[in-house]
């Protein structure tokens, strides 16, 4: 999916947190702690990014016995590509500002 709008600051934080461990499935509460986003910002963002095909979500069995299954998230190939393009744009911008 092609995004025409610039990603918001909150989305950039979430993309960075998810891209830091691209293969790992991350839980909502851990992402809140990592990004500093509130649940009221994180979940609508995750819903939107899942709809846009940037994030995939699935129910994962708990690590500890007796705990309920948890919804987990990770970047899709498109999400990872978007995160990569933002990082390279950022690098180019910082190189230009240093030149």
């Amino acid at each position, binding site marked *: 999916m092609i995004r025409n709008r610039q990603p918001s600051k909150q989305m950039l934080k979430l993309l960075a947190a998810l891209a830091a461990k691209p293969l790992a499935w991350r*839980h*909502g*509460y851990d992402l*809140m702690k990592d990004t500093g986003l*509130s*649940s*009221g*910002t*994180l*979940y*609508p963002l995750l*819903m939107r990014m899942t709809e846009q095909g940037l994030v995939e*979500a699935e129910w994962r069995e708990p690590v500890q016995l007796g705990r*309920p*299954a*948890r*919804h987990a998230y990770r970047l899709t190939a498109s999400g990872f590509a978007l995160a990569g393009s933002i990082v390279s744009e950022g690098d180019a911008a910082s190189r230009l500002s240093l030149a």
Partner: protein
Amino acid sequence: MSAGAAHIVMSLALRCLPDDDRQWGQAMQTEFDQALRDGKPFGFALGCLIAGWRALPFHADGRFALASHALALGLIVPATFHLGCALSGVKLMVSGHDHYSAMLVAGGVRGKVLADAYLAAAPALTLLLFLLGSVHFFIAWATLDGRWRRAAILWLAATAIAAAIVGIAIATVPGTGGIAIQFAASAIELAAIPLLAMWQNARAGSPHHMEA
């Protein structure tokens, strides 16, 4: 903030989500348990509630909930006003005078006659205003519960009570401003209750709800 309050807020948040997002609601619920273990459940639940509220205008269930709550609020405001008037009536019956009767008495012979009529009508008006306020509260409740038949019957009762009040008011209190407002309010209720009922029936009959 107690865990009990956080649980209540979380339940409200989950009720704000549409049926399509039930899976996301379950996801929030499991992470809420995590926040509970971490000792920060209230902030988490409040965030989810705000997210739920912000999404309300963007899905059919949310729009219906907003409309029915707006109507309920529109019923509760006049109900509170009517109960306030009934309370003033009780005060008048206990003390035997209020500023309106004092104003009538000061208005000469015709004023004194009106003041006597006003005082004589006070018990009946007080009782009717108390009934009208209470019935409006019950209509609001029935509307939120989606019990349209009950809401319609209560609306008929409210209209009969309002008509009785208007009848007494015409005989004792000069001026038609209040009467016009009462008729306008009844007309709005008459239009709003069946409209909401039809809206809910249309939603219940939609393929989306039949699947759910």
